[in-house]
Structures are given as structure tokens and as C-alpha cells.
């Protein structure tokens, strides 16, 4: 109930906001804020009350929805999802605050769409029915398309449709795979009996049953691929990544935050939840280190890391740089997942959460600067540390967290991913560490070009970051530090679930 409430409160909020008069902007903003705060409170409640000692699903609701396909409204949380739910719920109000002043037109529609988006994201992380999962996955598309397309930058139309097309392409493959899974869900030893199901926990069990159609490794390989490409577009994994920089650059600040903070995580979450848990045999083909494909997943992670980092280095647009850095950092997630061992997967999941927090900070910070200077050209700044010391301080924190400075959250996930991956793919992991150096290079270089050196006289009057902006950044900053110092705070939530997953993977 609590969970359902959490998912659908933003939807309710959307309706309420739509009913409010267009002129009363303050009211709309406050209402939106309120409706995003409710999920946050609920998420915190869930996070705290979640029984960490048990890895099982909790707070589940399972009611029939579409009987014809045995589709149920089945939601529930385990450690992994509750962590990401918390992230999503946290970024909700922050993004509303970040949109407080700089949405110039159609505020009402903006807020309504944002609330719809939040419902989609929350639902996605809670869904335990494959169909429901897919519906929520896609539900984020429409609001995102509009949010980028209407409120974005100069090339927003292109960016919006590109985002939409890429993701749709991916989800189409996912749909095929999903149907294939459903159709085979009642076939044992070649005989179909009983009802088919979309229930994720059930499917996971079935996929581990000897003789079951779902357990067939060739079948698993194809289905794995179908889902994987769907999620890969979202992550995004090279070569499906080119929508990301465009989308980020054009999207308004808050939407970039959501995009980097949550939407990318949907891809990796899907990979963990579906690809790894349900198709371990399929996974093994791409990660067992044997044969032509055996290293492919790790290789993709590596390519993402190195490619994203070098691309980031080449950027002169602040936001694009951060966007490419996201690609690089998601590479660590993929690498960790490919490792398939405890350290790797835990690290990957932690990296998901951390990257959500850190990249959100980075985009918020870019937004702060953009709101003042109205451009993002890195070389167009210089020395603004003198004018904006607090801003510089927070940016440094975020940069350091992002480049994986120990003591801040970014490090833990990255390090664990690498530690885990090294056990399985030594060479690839070693090569991937290039990303660490290049990551430091582009962030420091940016720091230098934007903040250090002589103050660019154009920005003599640059106002310091204001209270509202600080308010959006502080919770994230605190999380960054807290998770850096005490990662168990988050890890505890899901390490049990991961242990189960690792046991499954090890059994292959």
C-alpha cells in the first residue's frame, strides 16, 4: 500500500496541477513540490523500515490486472530497488526546486509532465511484473520527450526525437524478448502446461529449473540480447550512446538531472533485474571469458569507460562534458556487472546510486552557472573561483566525487567494480583504469579553465550561488560524503540480494 501510494501520489499530483489555474504559478510550484516530497518521505520510510537482513521482496502488492495475459499489478521492493527508489524520490523535489525560477513558459505543463515522469520512474523500480515493468519503462518516454522538446535548448527538437527514437528502438527489441519469455513461461521439457506468467520472481525461478524452456541456453542468449539492447540504449552503452550528449545538452537543468540521475539507472537496473537474474545462462555466454563473445560485456564496459572519458576530454561545452563523463561512469557499472561476482555487482549497484547523486549534482551545478552566464562554453569562463567561492567549493566536491576521489562516494562503487572485474577480466580491467586518469584529467582541466586563473573581466559581477540552489545541492553533497565514508549505509540494503544473485550466477 505504502509503495503504491508512493508511486501514484505524483500521478495524483499531476491531475491536481492540471486542475490548478495556469496563472497561479507559485501555487503550482508549491503543489508540485509537495507532491514530490510525499514520495521522498515514503521512500525514506521504506528505506528505513526495509528489513536488511532478508534479501527477499518486501512490501509487495500483487493484484490481478489483465487476466487475459495473466498480467498482475505486482510491485515490491528489494534492497536494490529501494535504493534506487530513494534516489528517484530524492531527486524529485530537488529538480522541482531547480526548476523554480528558470522555466519561462508553460510552467503548469512542465510540472505536470514532471510528476508523470516521476510516477513512471518510481513504478519502474518497484515493478515485479515484467509487463508492468515495461509499461513503466516506457511511461517515462513521453514526458521526457516533451520536457526536452518544449523546454530545451536551441536544438531541442532534434535531441528530443533522437532520444525518443533510440529508446523506442531499444524497447521494441525488449518487447519481442518479453513476449518470447512469456510464451515460453509454461513450457517444460517441450510440453506446454499451466498458465503463462509475467511474474518476475516466478520467471526467475523457472529460468533456473532444469528442462524448462526458459532455462535453455540458446533461448536465454537471444532473449538476453533482446533485453540487453533495450537497456543498453538507456544506459547508454556504446554504440547506442549518441542520443545522450544531445539530450543532455538541450534538456533544461532539472531534466538533465533526472536523465543522468535516474533514467540511465533504469537501464542498468534492468540489466541486473532481468538480464542477470533471469538469464544467467545467457549472461554467461557474454561474460564467461571463453570464446569470441566471452568478454564482450566487459569489453563494452571498457569501451564505455575509455570512450566516454576521452570524449569528455574533447568537449568544450560544460554540459556535454558532464554528459560524456556519465557515459564513462556508466561503463564502470557495466564492467562491474560483467564481473558477476560479489564485489563487482555490489560495486556496480553502488556506482549506479552514486553516479545518480553525483551526476545530479554536476548537472545542477552546470545549471547554476548557465543561469548566470547564459552559456556553457568552458573556455569562456576563467577565474570565477574568486567571485563564487562557495559555488567553486561545491563544484570541487562534485568533481572530486565524480573522478573517484576516495572518501567520497564515487570512489567506492568504482573501486569495487574494478576490484570485482579484475578477478575475471584482468587485462580489460587494467586498461579500464585509463579512465580513472582521464577522468581526473578532464575534470581538473575543466576546474582550471572555468574556476582558476585570472578572473575573466566579463564576469566581474557574477552573483554567488543563492540559497535555493544551495538547498538543492546540499542533500546530494551530504549523500556523497556520507556514502564515501560509510558505504554500508547503502550497501547493506542490497548486498544480501546481490549475494543471492551471485549464487545463481556461480551455479552456472
Amino acid at each position, binding site marked *: 500500500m505504502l509503495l503504491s501510494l508512493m508511486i501514484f501520489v505524483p500521478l495524483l499530483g499531476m491531475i491536481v496541477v492540471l486542475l490548478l489555474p495556469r496563472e497561479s504559478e507559485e501555487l503550482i510550484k508549491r503543489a508540485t513540490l509537495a507532491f514530490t516530497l510525499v514520495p521522498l518521505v515514503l521512500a525514506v520510510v521504506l528505506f528505513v523500515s526495509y528489513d536488511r537482513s532478508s534479501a527477499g521482496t518486501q512490501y509487495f502488492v500483487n493484484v490481478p490486472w489483465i487476466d487475459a495475459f495473466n498480467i498482475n499489478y505486482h510491485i515490491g521492493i528489494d534492497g536494490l530497488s529501494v535504493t534506487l527508489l530513494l534516489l528517484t524520490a530524492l531527486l524529485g523535489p530537488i529538480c522541482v526546486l531547480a526548476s523554480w525560477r528558470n522555466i519561462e513558459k508553460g510552467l503548469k505543463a512542465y510540472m505536470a509532465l514532471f510528476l508523470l515522469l516521476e510516477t513512471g520512474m518510481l513504478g519502474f523500480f518497484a515493478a515485479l511484473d515484467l509487463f508492468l515493468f515495461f509499461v513503466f519503462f516506457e511511461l517515462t518516454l513521453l514526458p521526457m520527450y516533451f520536457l526536452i522538446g518544449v523546454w530545451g535548448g536551441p536544438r531541442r527538437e532534434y535531441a528530443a526525437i533522437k532520444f525518443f527514437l533510440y529508446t523506442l528502438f531499444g524497447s521494441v527489441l525488449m518487447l519481442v524478448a518479453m513476449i518470447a519469455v512469456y510464451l515460453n513461461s509454461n513450457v517444460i521439457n517441450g510440453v506446454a502446461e499451466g498458465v503463462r506468467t509475467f511474474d518476475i520472481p516466478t520467471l526467475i525461478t523457472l529460468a533456473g529449473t532444469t528442462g524448462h524452456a526458459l532455462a535453455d541456453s540458446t533461448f536465454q542468449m537471444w532473449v538476453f540480447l533482446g533485453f540487453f539492447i533495450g537497456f543498453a540504449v538507456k544506459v547508454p552503452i556504446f554504440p547506442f550512446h549518441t542520443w545522450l550528449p544531445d539530450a543532455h545538452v538541450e534538456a533544461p537543468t532539472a531534466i538533465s538531472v533526472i536523465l543522468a540521475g535516474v533514467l540511465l539507472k533504469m537501464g542498468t537496473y534492468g540489466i541486473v533485474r532481468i538480464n542477470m537474474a533471469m538469464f544467467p545462462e545467457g549472461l554467461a555466454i557474454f561474460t564467461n571469458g571463453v570464446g569470441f563473445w566471452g568478454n564482450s560485456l566487459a569489453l563494452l564496459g571498457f569501451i564505455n569507460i575509455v570512450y566516454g572519458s576521452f570524449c569528455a576530454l574533447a*568537449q568544450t561545452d560544460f554540459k556535454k562534458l558532464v554528459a560524456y563523463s556519465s557515459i564513462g561512469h556508466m561503463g564502470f557499472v557495466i564492467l562491474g556487472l560483467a564481473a558477476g561476482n560479489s564485489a563487482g555487482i555490489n560495486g556496480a549497484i553502488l556506482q549506479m546510486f552514486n553516479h545518480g547523486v553525483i551526476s545530479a549534482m554536476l548537472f545542477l551545478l552546470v545549471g547554476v552557472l548557465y543561469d548566470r552566464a547564459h552559456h556553457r562554453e568552458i573556455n569562456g569562463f576563467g577565474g570565477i573561483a574568486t567571485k563564487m567561492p562557495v559555488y567553486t567549493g561545491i563544484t570541487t566536491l562534485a568533481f572530486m566525487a565524480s573522478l573517484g576521489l576516495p572518501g567520497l562516494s564515487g570512489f567506492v562503487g568504482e573501486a569495487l567494480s574494478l576490484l570485482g572485474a579484475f578477478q575475471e577480466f584482468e587485462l580489460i580491467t587494467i586498461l579500464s583504469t585509463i579512465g*580513472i586518469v582521464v577522468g581526473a584529467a578532464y575534470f581538473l*582541466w575543466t576546474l582550471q579553465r572555468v574556476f582558476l586563473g585570472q578572473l575573466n573581466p566579463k564576469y566581474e559581477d557574477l552573483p554567488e550561488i543563492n540559497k535555493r540552489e544551495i538547498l538543492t545541492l546540499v542533500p546530494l553533497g551530504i549523500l556523497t560524503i556520507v556514502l564515501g565514508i560509510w558505504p554500508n549505509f547503502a550497501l547493506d540494503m542490497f548486498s544480501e540480494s546481490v549475494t543471492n544473485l551471485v549464487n545463481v550466477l556461480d551455479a552456472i
Partner: protein
Amino acid sequence: MVVPLISIILLAPLASFAIFALLGLAKRNFPRQDYLSTFAMLVALGCSLLLIQEVTSEPTPLTVEWLSLGSVNFSMGFYLDSVTVIMLIVVTLVSSLVHIFSIGYMHGDPRYSRFFAFLSLFSFSMLFLVVSDNLLGIYIGWELVGLCSYLLIGFWFEKDTAANACKKAFLTTRVGDVGMFIGMMMLFAEFRTLSLYGDTGIFEAVATLESGQIAWLSIAGILIFCGAVGKSAQVPLHTWLPDAMEGPTPVSALIHAATMVAAGVYLVARMFPILTPTSSLVIAYVGGITALVAATIAIVRFDIKRVLAYSTISQLGYMMLAIGAGSYVAGLFHLTTHAFFKALLFLGSGSVIHAFHAMHAHHDDAEHTEDAAHEHADNSLVHEHGSEIPPDQDMRNMGGLRRKMPLTFITMLIATLSISGVPFVFSGFWSKDKILGGVLGRAMEWNSVHHYILFAMALIAAGITAFYMFRLIFMTFFGEPRNQEMHDMAHESPWVMVVPLIVLAVLSFPVVNTLWFNKDYIEPPPQHHIPAPQHAYVSPDSKIGDANFGFSLFGVSTAQAAEEDAGPDTAQADDAYHIHHRAHNIAMVLSICVAGLGILLSWLFYHRRRFSAEGVATTFRPVYNLFWNKYYFDEFYDGVLVALTVWKSRLFAKFDLSFIDGIVNGVGKITRDIFAAFIGFFDNRVVDGFVNRVAEVTWAAGGRIRKIQTGAIQTYLFVVLGGIVLIILIFRLF
């Protein structure tokens, strides 16, 4: 008591920083951040001193579980042994003194509070590094000190040189850190833990390895050492340290002389048990080469701080050499003595620079206008390396300061004597001697050519050290003032700056240091994969060495003490003892000789001016150039990497222009110009291009289909009827 004490040691500076950061968010300052930070450091110092009592003979790690991943757990904790305590005291002591010094030195800086906050953060990080009982904790502290170093080098970030230097420092050390991280990954992959101590720790596990399995362990050891190469500025990653002198001088004293750079030595010492003969030798050679290279470069510098920077590099090489050659105790001992006298030297130079402060400010103004002229022309990673020396640091502007700044002069002289290895009264002599003796001892014991070579390197470096240090003293404090205008402005520093100098000067005498060594305070950990003679040798080494040193101080014959101490040991140990004893005597004599020679030459060159340094430089032009250009390391990095991509002529043009740049900048440039551009191109054209191509084809197909739709009805009928025929034919074919 241990845990609360360590907690206080860590939390006091952290709290000081946290107060600054939190108030900063509210855009406020704590009114006296300087006092707050200093007080925090003094508290930490007090607690560190208290900890001396707490060291037990069987140190146990005090751990808490930090990360639990089911099968694998990472714990965080403290490990307190004598080395830890020594390090704690060195760090807190130097840090406290630097804090006090900075109150005077940084007075009037617009970001005064911030400076102290950063110092506090650094102290915390360094202390955390020191007390950590596992590799992960060490790595965390390791990177955090790197961050602080970055922040403090770039403290005057308006200067482009400072902004470049801080970035270079961070990135260069990060290259090493990645190596260290890979080493950690190797250890983790093998042992499933990063804890060092305890039953499940790495050291215990290493002990059980078969001798055939240690090839990878050598690699892991060398990789871990890579971290130290970066942090401790060893060749070939040393180039950042001289640039780091762009930071305020107290920072140089604290971070880039006494503590952070020594962390590399500390790390290698901590990892002592996993070192294999191969990795030890690599470490020793790197240390030796560093010692020699840096010393030779230091000869020709004119920037007072850069001379000290190269000296630091050189001395760090020494320490590495010692530990690599198995002289664990000697290395750490030199670390301690060096920390004090090098901090003293830096603070002294800071005092001198401070004396020119008015000029400094003036110069700053000039720089401002100049910068405004080509404002932000520098947009690439590559920057024109600032080879020009700020006038207030240029020794050619100094001279005769001993009368103007007597206290500074005396304290610095003490430190110089110490570092030069002037015998018996100065701590530097003893630690250096111990290293030389240790290396020679091993060479003789193993009859190892490698160690003879290492000994020679160390000896030469010792001589050069004496030479350039006295060159510094002579150029700065003796002779006639070379820049009268500046000289007139110079003045002795205020008490708040002088007192730390005096304290450090006192610490440069061996009395204080000996206390610990005398009591068998340090027990070198066992090395499981160094051949047996070594095993038997190390243990007596420390005792004998210490005894030797301690008793000789009190006028007792070394031989006698050694006999007493070694007592009835195995014949082998007895052998080792004798060899060592002989080696030590030889080393001491030689070391005194080279030190004397160095000082003498320096006196002749720079005080008596019997020989013209310029003349020598002209005579040995190639050698001089080599030194002056710092062995072309920066150029090498730039050149090699550029050569990969840019054609030959351009390469040579760059050499001709004496284009000075560092590895980071080189890498950055290449990445920027070629690699990243290619990738950017790839991204836009190939990946996107493919998608766009598909889209175009789709679109074009749409256009084609549109063309069929001519609007003429009979065309449509053709399609219909032709379609029927086609369907039938196609189906017929199948």
C-alpha cells in the same frame, strides 16, 4: 585509550575543516580559523605523544567492518605500532609548526581562513593514511592528501602557473595511483582482502605462498610502489614536485617536504613484508636514480624553493633506496630526520621570501597586468611552463642576508649542516650514514653488484647534496647583496614565524630522535620472500644499527655495543654482524669525506669564488644543459607522446623552441588535438553517422514510394495488376 586517542587525532583537524566548510555554505567564516586549526593540530600532537605509551610489542589492528558484501568484507581500522606513532608525531609536530608559521606568513591573504582549513583537512588525511591498517584505508588517505596537495598548490589559483601546477601534481600522482590500484586489485584478486594485518590479512597470506608463486607478487609489489613513485616524486614521475612550489611556502614545507611526499616511503615500508627480491631491487634502483638525478638538477637551480624541491626528491630517493635495500629502519629514520630539517629549510626559505614580501606584492601587480594582456589565451591543457623565477625566490637576487635575518640564517644553517651529513652532531648525518652503511652492508654480505652500484649512487648523491645545499646558503646569506633594492626591504620575520624555525632547528639535532631508536622501538617486519641470509640479517640490523648509533652518541664504542647486543646468536648472524660492522665503518668514513668535499667545493665556488660556476658550466656545456633542462624529462614526455602523432618536423621544431611541458600537458595535448578529436569525429560521423545513414535511407525509401504515387490512376492500376501477377509468380517460385 588507543581508539579514543586516535579518534581525537583524526577528528580534531577534521572538525576544524568541517566548521569552515559548513560555515562556508552559509557564506560565513569562522572568525579565527587560524587559531582553530592550530589548536586542533596541537591537540592532535598532544594525543600523539600520549600514544607513545600505548604501543605494545604485539600490535593488533582495531577494525570495524566498513563494507560487507557477503562473501567479501572490507574493514577499516587502525593499526598502531611504533612506526605509526613516529609518523603521527612527525606529522602532527611539523603540521603544528607549519600552522604557527603560517599565521605570520599568510597574514593578510584574502583567503587566509581557507588556507588553514585546507591545512587541517590535509592533516586529517595524512593522519588517516598513517593509522590505517589496510590498503583501502591507506589508498583513501593517499588520495585525500593528493586532493589537499592539489588545493594548496593551487591556493593562489589566479596565477596560471599555480593553476597548472596543481593540476599537474594531481594528474601525475594519479598516474602512479592507478598503478597502485592495479596492484591492490592483484592482491585482492589473490587474497580476497585488502586488510594487511591479522590472521586473514595479506601479510599472513603472503607468508604461506610458495616460492614459485611470487613472480606475480613482485609485479604487485612494483605496482604498489608505482603509487609511491607518484606521491614521493620518484623518477620518472617526479616532475610535478618542483612545479608544486607554486603553492605557498608553508605548504611546501608541510606537504612537499615533510609529510605527504614521505607517505610514499611510508607506504613502501608498510608493504615491506610483501616485497620480493625483484621488487626490492626495482625500488632501490628507482630510489637511487632519483637521488642522483634530482641532486644534479638541484645544482643548477636558482630558485631557492626549487633547489629545495629537488633536494627533497633526492632525499626521498634515498629513503626508497634504503627500504629497497632492506634497511627498513634506516629509511624510516631518514624520513623522520628529513621531515624536520627539510621543513625547516622550507620554512626558512619562506621566511626569506616573506622578507621580500613587499616586492612580492609588487610583482603580483605586474603579473596581473601582464596576464590581462593575453588574457585566457591559454585554453589548452598545454601551457607555457613558467621557467622564469619570481624575483623574491631568485637566489641571484639574494646575498648577505645573514645580517638582516640572523635567526633565519642560523636555523637554516643548522638544517643545511644536517642534510649535508656533517658528522656527529646533526641528525641527518646519522640517518644518512645508516642508509649508506645498510646498503654497503648488504652489498658486502650478498656480494651483490647491484648493491655496490646503489651504494655508489647514494654516496655521490650525498656529496652533491652537501654541495648544492651550501651553494644555497652561500648564495642567500653570504656575500654582498645582489639586489640592493630588495635587500633594503628585507627584514627578519616576526616571532610567530621564527619560533617554529627554532623548534625545528632543535629537532634537527639527534637527541630528540634518538630516544626512540634507542629503545628498540622499531621492529622491522619479516620479509617472507627475501632469501634466508637476509632474514637472519635484518633483525640484527636494526638492533645493531640502533645500538651502534645510540651508543656512539654517548661516546661508547660501536663495536662494543654491538657485541653486547648481538650476544650469542647463530654463526650466520654473527657473520652478518661482522660484515655489517665493517661496512658501517667504511660507509661512515666515505660519507664524511664526500660531505666534506661537497661543502669545500661549494665554499670555493660560491663563497670564495675561486672558481667560476659559469666557467665550469661553459666548459661542461652538455652536462650543464642536461642538468639545467632537468634531464629533459618534461620535454621527453611531451616529445615522445607528440611524436606518436605529429610528424617529425614539428617534433623537432618543438624541441628547438625548448617547449617545456609536462606529461599531463603532453597527454592532454595529444588527446585534445588528435585522439579526442578523432573520437569526437568518430562519435559524430561514424556512430551517429551510421544512424543518420539509416535514417536517410529510410527517408529516401519514403521518397521513392512517394514517387510511385504519381497521381495518375493508371499507374495505380499497373501496380494493382502487376502486383497480382507478381504475387502469383513469387508464390509459384517458392
